[in-house]
């Protein structure tokens, strides 16, 4: 089934039954996310850390003792390792950021030896539910890679295609963005986009269709593309927008959130288990959606 909005995502995830969300301590909005995920029928929370604090947090958020589990871990430095153990031993399904600061958490999670990374490339997909548009659209990479190489962009595209599949989009249309729609050696992102488009033409990304380079006006508006002489099934109909680097990815995602007012939920891709980051620019209204997307991404779904 194709999921076309955030409400449907929550509904479809809830049908799969509660998943075990492991929370290594509390920080930021994690408890709010968790309690809303419990209310939506998505989560069975497992707290790791100071048991007294865990009990207090559960009570504060209206989570009954029977609705979750508290595992005592006195040493704060071991909390994340315990969470990893639970995931690897299949005693938990989804990892939340918890108390760890952003950089330390992401570095630990994406550590190739001790962390949860399972792909060549990790990336972050911002999923948008634009008003008056009857489908979800994705923008990537909006958080993880600063200036990805072509090889990393291939991984970023593959991650986004995987997420699209989970959302029921089997042949996603992908706009590889750049400053202009022409290939220009002075602008390296135009070259990467052209190569990705050629790879797609040769079916190296399965049924996905990549067009590039495209400037944003051609990507979002078939009329604008027509004015520039660009004809493609992707223009005006893209499911996934691939950004050239984090400058454009991060800023475009935030512009969509704050100026366009688009609801956005983020998904970390490239890990063995779904991981929910606690980013401050994801609105509290979208936090349950992130939980739902994590449930949909669980292995065996």
């Amino acid at each position, binding site marked *: 089934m194709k999921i076309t909005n955030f409400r449907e995502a929550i509904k479809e995830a809830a049908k799969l039954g509660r998943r075990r969300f492991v929370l290594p301590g509390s920080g930021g909005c994690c408890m709010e996310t968790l309690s809303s995920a419990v209310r939506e029928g998505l989560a069975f929370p497992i707290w790791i850390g100071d048991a007294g604090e865990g009990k207090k947090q559960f009570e504060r958020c209206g989570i009954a003792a029977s609705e979750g589990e508290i595992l005592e871990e006195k040493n704060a430095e071991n909390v994340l390792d315990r969470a990893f153990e639970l995931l690897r031993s299949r005693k938990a399904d989804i990892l939340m950021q918890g108390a760890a600061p952003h950089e330390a958490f992401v570095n630990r999670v994406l550590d190739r030896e001790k962390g949860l990374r399972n792909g060549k490339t990790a990336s972050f997909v911002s999923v948008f539910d634009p008003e008056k548009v009857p489908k979800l659209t994705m923008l990537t990479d909006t958080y993880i890679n600063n200036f990805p190489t072509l090889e990393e962009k291939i991984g970023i595209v593959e991650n986004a295609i995987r997420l699209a599949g989970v959302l029921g989009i089997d042949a996603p249309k992908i706009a590889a963005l750049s400053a202009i729609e022409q290939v220009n050696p002075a602008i390296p992102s135009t070259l990467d986009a052209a190569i990705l488009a050629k790879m797609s033409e040769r079916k190296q990304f399965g049924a996905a269709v990549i067009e590039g380079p495209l400037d944003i006006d051609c990507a979002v508006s078939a009329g604008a593309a027509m004015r520039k002489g660009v004809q493609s099934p992707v223009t005006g109909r893209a499911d996934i927008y691939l950004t050239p680097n984090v400058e*454009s990815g991060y800023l475009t995602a935030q512009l969509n959130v704050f100026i366009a007012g688009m609801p956005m939920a983020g998904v970390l891709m490239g890990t063995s288990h779904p991981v929910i980051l606690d980013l401050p620019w994801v609105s*509290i209204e979208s936090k349950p959606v992130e939980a739902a997307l994590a449930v949909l991404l669980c292995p065996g779904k």
Partner: protein
Amino acid sequence: MLRSFAEIDKTAVEKGPKRLVVLAPEDEEFIEAVKESMVRRYIEPVLIGSRRKMEQLSEKLEIDISRVEKIYETDRQAIADKGINMLFSGEVDIAGKGQIPTAYIYRAIIREEARGRKRNVSVISLWDIEGLSGLTSFTDTGVNINPDLQAKKQIISNAVYLFHVLGYSRPRVSILSGRREIGGSIPSYEIGRKLREACAAGELGACEVVDAASFGDIFIPGLKKFSRNEIDMGKVDFPEIMVVPDLTTGNILVKLDFAIPRVRRRSLVMTSRGPVIIPSRSDFRESITGEIATGVVVADRIKEAAS
């Protein structure tokens, strides 16, 4: 202070008509915009381009250009050189890009500037966001692919000049960056830090470089968590000038107006002698007409300040 495109359009009616030279008027949308601008008495056009193409277009669009001043030229660089020279010599007040690659126009501007004040070339894209109490802008959205510190100082100088002309005595400048909680520092953020220092030392003139480097910073300073219901455009302390990290990012951000109904965009280059309006090849007549109105007001104010 001009706070919206509507105010600019109203002022353009009062201050027009100005002489606008159109470089390669072979684009239907641009010519329709010129026609509309004549009706609104914003401009008196001068057309430079191919005679054959002008005649074909006037016939196709049923626009009478018999009484419009025309200069026939087919070489693109010659078209740009002639038009920009007319701007710098004071024969016209505004130049506008028709169906000609921007590189020819930038080259012509650089040559003219080299003879005088040596103002660098950068594109400023104004945004009028519904609900915001003033104009904002992105720059440089058209020329410098990967500007360094020096280039960004000049980019800021051009944008500050425009905002002074529009009546903003001390515009606030945000140096946008993809720096976030992870990934270490990145060049755009380091340049931003140096620009804040340069501004504090008085090197950037009458402006203020603010700390905010992303939209999250702008909307919710010290952002920890937010609700969509808290976002009130009318209460946001929005900077007038947003310096983009690089051309690609600038181009992507500024043309998101295609997807955001509450936003309108108008782009121009500030030269020492007047504005050059630079519509995107995908822009439609309404947007181009607005850019012409902006050019009229800016040209008028530059002249007024000079006299």
